[in-house]
């Protein structure tokens, strides 16, 4: 680790928080339907969309109607995306003449993009036409992100007042978030990426003659703007197979810093939005600081593990100066890779600019554990906030009894119904991750996909289901993912991770909204203090993390201690 490395990390984090402050306030305005600086330009577009779709933005929906709208919308998105991928050979903008995607792969990919996971069992430059990339994948990069934010806004509104029946209008939230938040940010960031060297073209791949006299096909495409939303919407699905490690997708350190900024920006900003909407800004900052604390700790852990290097390499006389460089690009350096990795897995983005499989065992365990903790640090756009609020409810309940009152969070009593639903939501991740992994580890059809022996082989499989269920989408590497078994089960894990989680969360929103808002008093559990931040962190670690320790012990931890003992597999 170097001072300059830490300075880079600090600088990027400061830029993220500094930008989250105004953005958080702005999203709160957009959520309330207030007039913003963008309205003269985009207001007519918004009204036109409502007119065409027949939506009355002022008509509120209860939690059931809101959830049903969201589910219908997602189902329709899945169907249309599936069709586009299957039929891309007959659709336009296909200069490379790719055939239609195979059914299993199309199923997996369609679910992946609709659930904001962006797990990719294909390589974009070798399997997806420009039409699939733009009209299919990029569209869902926007819509799945907007869906997540809308759900978070609905839950946020449950805390605003007492006896509420309505949580807002899903269609209006979806339209406003896309139009006023995601689109403008993507345009600005996309232009910046073009300036930093990313291609944005519809022309066919270039054929180049190499210096050695050979010929090479260089994949191109409408990259820059897709990458902008890929990070801003914590999607993470790369234009190219190797994601941000590709020179056109990660053209340099500055572009990497910007990508980190993009993928953490909205999740952090939404915490502050929460504070604005519920009228308790300190609460927003408490949520943000817990997330930030974990990101810093995770970055430090990765940075330390990777910069120290692999003891086996060092024993063999490899230069220790750069640390473990396998699977990393010298353009980015250890510090930015560590921060990128911590934010992409903490924020449910799933873009990668290094290969986790090549990390040291502990360095690779950090991204795995970050996803397992529930994708709330800071989590995906929207999903991070609502996941964090579920943990906050549980933290308030467990420790809140200790002040001698029925626990309350922001004036809403936390009772049996909320606890039941919160536990249902919390159950989803261990059930999907550990359940599918356990089956896969004894099923020959699944075991055939594993590339390595020993604990590392387990880590590959565990990571795949973790990434899918956590809606992260990053790959550990090593695993052959495009098999009927993995396409199907990973697809199911993604579905569970998104919808089996969010339906109970929306039921909580409905239940909380209807409750009276109890006025704050000195006898009330204070939830806007550093003490609560510490408690929340503890609850995330214990309720979100403990159940994964046995599998981590058999995977990365066993690999780590074996490595220290000089043993390889």
């Amino acid at each position: 680790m170097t001072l300059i490395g830490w300075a880079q990390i600090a600088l990027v984090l400061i830029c993220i928080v500094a930008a989250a402050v105004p953005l958080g306030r702005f999203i709160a305005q957009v959520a309330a339907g207030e007039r913003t600086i963008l309205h003269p330009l985009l207001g007519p577009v918004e009204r036109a969309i409502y007119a065409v779709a027949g939506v009355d933005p002022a008509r509120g929906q209860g939690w059931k109607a809101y959830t049903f709208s969201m589910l219908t919308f997602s189902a329709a998105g899945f169907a249309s995306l599936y069709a586009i991928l299957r039929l891309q050979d007959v659709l336009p903008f296909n200069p490379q003449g790719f055939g239609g995607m195979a059914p299993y792969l199309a199923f997996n990919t369609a679910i992946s993009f609709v659930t904001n996971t962006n797990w990719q069992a294909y390589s974009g430059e070798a399997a997806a036409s420009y039409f699939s990339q733009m009209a299919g994948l990029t569209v869902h990069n926007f819509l799945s992100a907007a869906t997540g934010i809308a759900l978070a806004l609905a839950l946020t509104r449950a805390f605003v007042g007492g006896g509420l029946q309505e949580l807002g209008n899903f269609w209006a939230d979806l339209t406003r978030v896309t139009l006023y938040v995601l689109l403008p940010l993507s345009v600005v960031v996309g232009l910046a990426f073009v300036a930093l060297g990313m291609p944005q073209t519809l022309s066919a791949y270039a054929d180049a003659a190499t210096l050695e006299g050979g010929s090479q096909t260089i994949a191109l495409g409408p990259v820059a703007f897709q990458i902008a939303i890929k990070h801003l919407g914590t999607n993470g699905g790369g234009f190219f197979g190797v994601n941000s490690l590709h020179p056109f997708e990660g053209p340099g350190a500055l572009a990497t810093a910007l990508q980190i900024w993009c993928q953490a920006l909205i999740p952090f900003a939404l915490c502050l939005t929460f504070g604005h909407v519920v009228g308790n800004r300190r609460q927003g900052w408490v949520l943000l600081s817990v997330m930030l604390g974990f990101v810093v700790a995770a970055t430090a852990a990765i940075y330390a593990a990777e910069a120290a290097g692999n003891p086996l390499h060092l024993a063999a006389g490899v230069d220790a100066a750069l640390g473990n460089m396998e699977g990393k690009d010298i353009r980015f350096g250890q510090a930015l890779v560590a921060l990128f990795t911590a934010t992409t897995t903490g924020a449910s983005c799933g873009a990668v600019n290094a290969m986790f499989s090549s990390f040291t065992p502990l360095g690779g365990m950090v991204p795995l554990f970050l996803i397992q903790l529930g994708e709330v640090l800071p989590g995906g756009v929207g999903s991070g906030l609502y996941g964090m609020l579920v943990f906050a409810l549980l933290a308030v309940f467990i420790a809140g009894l200790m002040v001698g009152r029925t626990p309350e969070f922001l004036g809403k009593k936390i009772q049996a119904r909320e606890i039941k639903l919160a536990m249902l939501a919390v159950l989803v991740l261990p059930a999907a991750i550990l359940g599918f992994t356990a089956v896969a580890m004894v099923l020959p059809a699944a075991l055939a996909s594993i590339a390595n022996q020993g604990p590392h082989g387990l880590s590959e499989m565990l990571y795949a289901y973790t990434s899918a269920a956590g809606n992260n989408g990053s790959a550990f590497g090593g695993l052959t993912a495009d098999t009927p078994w993995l396409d199907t089960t990973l697809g199911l894990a993604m579905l569970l991770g998104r919808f089996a989680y969010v339906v109970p969360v929306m039921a909580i929103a409905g239940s909380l909204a209807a409750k009276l808002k109890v006025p704050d008093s000195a006898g009330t559990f204070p939830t806007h203090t550093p003490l609560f931040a510490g408690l929340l962190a503890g609850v995330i670690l214990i309720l979100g993390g403990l159940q994964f320790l046995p599998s981590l012990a058999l995977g990365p931890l066993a690999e780590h201690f074996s490595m220290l003992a000089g043993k390889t597999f």
Partner: protein
Amino acid sequence: MPDINLPLHQGQSTRAARAAGAALFDRAILSRASLDALRKLNPVSLIRNPVIFTTELVSALVTALAIQAALTGKPWEFAAAIAVWLWLTVLFATFAEAVAEGRGRARAASLRRSRTETQAKLLVRHDDRSLWRHRAAAALQVNDVVLVEAGDIIPSDGEIIEGIASVNEAAVTGESAPVIRESGGDRSAVTGGTLVVSDWLVVRITAAPGSTFLDRMIALVEGASRQKTPNEIALDLLLAGMTIIFLIAVASLVGIAAWNGQPPSVTVLAALLITLIPTTIGGLLSAIGIAGMDRLVRFNVLATSGRAVEAAGDVDVLLLDKTGTITLGNRQAAAFIPAPGVAEQELAEAAVLSSLADQTPEGRSILAFARERHGFAVPALTASAREIAFTAQTRISGLDLGGASYRKGAVESLVKAVQAELPPALGQAIERIARQGGTPLAVSKDGRLLGAIELKDIVKPGIRERFAALRRMDIRTVMVTGDNCLTAAAIAAEAGVDDFIAEATPEDKLRYIRAAQAEGRLVAMCGDGTNDAPALAQADVGVAMQTGTQAAREAGNMVDLDSDPTKLIEVVEIGKQMLITRGALTTFSIANDVAKYFAILPAIFVVSYPELQALNVMRLTSPESAILSAVIFNALIIVALVPLALRGVRFTPVGAAALLRRNLLIYGLGGIVAPFLGIKLIDLLLNLLGMY
């Protein structure tokens, strides 16, 4: 009329609490509880407790495996040891519940004795006391009318329709001084099982057989009709959810560990599961609830449900009657106001002398005040002294002594009687006293007005501090009084309440409660009269006085057997204590998991990866001893925490933030550290005993 204005109950209560602590482990209760603990192993009843039920199933499974191993000649000792300790875990949990129930049972037994078969005198005609026939008390129906005479036990709950009698209610309240019960008014309710000491009563029965106050009390203290409280249900769901999560984590190891070719044995996985699921709080949860109710009973308060006790912890507004709760109820001398040109000493002397013949509480309070303030002892009277006693007609008392005549009385009456001029300054002072709700008395010597005595409601000593403590818990105190606004404001300021309702009608109370509830606040109040019943029913916590009417007792969800309204404050504290105890033990239980992982995980996986021995930070002797130590710790911690569960975690009114910080430190951090020490110690012991 007996004096219902009992003194503050604080000293008595803490004594009672201490006595309760001393009797925590009565030998009779313990031996009975051990038997009950075995009976409670019945899975049909244990299924109410998901965590302990899971533990029982796993215990049975491990037992079966141990037996199978023994029969097939495989090593069975380790599985047997684990099985024994898993069974003990279940047993300790049922034992905790049985002990908690046992403490209430002693009280129930004494109650039952007063319910012995009595023969009631059923009147044939309501208006004829001479004609009655015997009927068994248990066969009495609602609206039957019975005669109860001196020496009879009142056969069932009822309303007095005729007569007045003194009744010994010791059977219910434990207080043997008889109280007056009479028809009409707020003291017309009688309780079955109590004894008429003098005179007679005609009583209309109001309780159906088997549902009398005494019956309900017995059921309550025995915990027979115990239902889970809302927070308990929520906590149960959390614990069940955690159990499922850890079940998934442990079950998935069968597949995940297969990759290394060395899946752990079922016994070991069972041990891991039971140590991870929250058995500590799961085992103590119902004991905490029962103990909370029991603590109330020891304070002589009966709650009709645990829900009410829990609600007491949540209360944000306390409605308190002024008279008897905040003030002593009797008007007492509070100041001497001399007329212009009169020394206070002279006024005081005249006041004392003129009050010697006044035997009313007010008169005596003047003597007491003068003694306290001016050091006047009651002078010995010579034979020549002539006392003029106070009567309701003259409203004047006095003394003629050595040629001087001292008079004291109501201002108007005295001015008329001595035909003196009221000095304007004194007139103003008298007016001020009246305006503030006090009662002015005038004092004269030889026809000259010396000044006035101010009588007023005296705020109970110590009450101000208690309200301050309530304020620190952010509980608003509201004084309810029939006095006018000014009087009410003066007393409210003196007592330090947050708000008051002056000239209050029962409707006002009801309206106030509803308004507070609409804002999301929980309201507690106490009352005794029939017209309090609607408000008692509307309040979240309604404490009826045992001396009150049947209607009030039915409407409230608690009955205070001592009829001491200030006890509401203790009730709130007991409610809070119950919630805190649950929260503290939950936090402790969950925090324990960290250390258990460090004990068991390396032990399980060390066969596949010997390098994982690095995680054995406690340096436990062997995999077997590590696993067994964790299981033993997990079982013993339940027993170790039984006293805390029964006594409850101490509640101090320091505000939620400070309370949270303290309890998180003790039970959160303590919960992480304690098992590291405990497991290591048990491992050392096992090692020392040569077992591993």
